[in-house]
């Protein structure tokens, strides 16, 4: 039995968030695909792994966990000395990793996810038209968030400090998908330091390997 297993779907940004961490830490794992179109994530046996019925779930030995950001943090702590160190290299930087992982979760992800849903998910999987008003509203919100990022990244190479960390990694899956929508990509490319940061983090070997492996 594999020591580590990820249960999820290649199209799920949350699943790819957990997988990205495993790749950066250079850790082997088995990927178990959950058939979301068939609603497998809302039933047994998956629901015992995550009672909220969401991917991913992560199993290591006998222990199971859910919530991609908790999974990645736990992996980063447990395997501190393996692969890329993702938790900051000084007390100050580590504290900032904490801050900017929360920023990703509470400021970036809400408008970004809504844009993902309207611009990609709806047309591709549901077949209903994009709601232009929702797109405009969330482009404006995301723009304001990225203004803060622009100011931050003008002073700091990565969000938490001089080193790549979980704070940057957590953004990868959603940014990767949003770059496929030209009008949303422009929000990133039109901001000098955000653009440089996006280019940097999306060209990391571990991330490129994930994109190729999962056809993400």
């Amino acid at each position, binding site marked *: 039995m594999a020591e580590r297993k990820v249960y999820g779907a290649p199209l799920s940004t949350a699943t790819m968030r957990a997988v990205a961490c495993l790749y950066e830490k250079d850790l082997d794992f088995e990927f178990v695909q959950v058939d979301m179109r068939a609603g497998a994530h809302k039933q047994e046996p998956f629901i015992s792994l995550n*009672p*909220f019925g969401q991917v991913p779930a992560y199993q290591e030995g006998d*222990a199971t*966990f*859910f*919530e991609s*950001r*908790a*999974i990645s*943090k*736990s992996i980063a*702590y*447990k395997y501190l000395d393996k692969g890329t160190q993702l938790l900051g290299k000084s*007390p*100050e930087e580590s*504290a*900032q990793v*904490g*801050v900017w*992982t*929360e*920023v990703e*979760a*509470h*400021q970036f992800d809400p408008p970004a996810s809504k844009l993902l849903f309207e611009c990609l998910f709806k047309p591709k999987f549901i077949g209903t038209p994009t709601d232009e008003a929702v797109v405009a509203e969330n482009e404006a919100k995301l723009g304001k*968030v990225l203004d*803060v990022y622009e*100011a*931050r990244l003008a002073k700091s190479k990565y969000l938490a400090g001089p080193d790549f960390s979980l704070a940057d990694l957590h953004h990868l899956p959603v940014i990767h998908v949003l770059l496929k929508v030209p009008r949303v990509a422009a929000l990133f490319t039109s901001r000098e330091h955000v653009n440089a940061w996006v280019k940097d983090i999306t060209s990391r070997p571990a991330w490129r390997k994930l994109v190729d492996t999962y056809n993400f």
Partner: protein
Amino acid sequence: MAAPIKVFGPAMSTATARVLACLLESQLQFDLVPVDMSKGQHKKPEFLGIQPFGQVPAFQDEHISLFESRAICRYIVDKYTEKGKRGLLGMETLERASIEQWLEAESQSFNPPSSALVFQLAFAPRMKLKQDPNLIAQNEAKLSKVLDVYEQRLGDSRFLAGDEFTLADLSHLPNAQYLINATDRAALFTSRKNVNRWWEEISGRTSWKKVVEMQQTPLPSSSST
């Protein structure tokens, strides 16, 4: 003598209260610096310098300046838990992983619908803002589903992450406090046997009672435990 820990924000803000609860649980001295949100102080340049998103709370500990209440809480617990003692983030990796999982559940599943309801039902009337019945109905339905999961979990476990009170439980206190005591939706919690038991236990902690007292005090002041 080191400068005291500073928290910037009103005690009645749920996110500020989250940090206050953590400081009081950790038995740390701190200064609560008022931020007058009714005058837009949180959107002024001086405040944006310590919290660029213009939200409360902000936090300073010597030369470290932080924001985002859950990040501040994790920092406090990591820095100030005595070595060898079980703090609010547990003692070893497996425990911590479970606590982080339920902290994220609070952050991602419990917080959005409960925050929306707190705003609509507790704050909007006070601020003379129009309530949105659709939003209320949607978020009540979402929160009910989340609390069904909690009901099952808390039937198997005394606290969310296990046998001990942790940061995962603490993080729920501010929103739940308002919903149960300042709206007519208390039944969301009290009608669920295990959730109700858990609520009674976590809200009965001395540190939380002190936060509630601070929320009811009209002028925020220097505080020590």
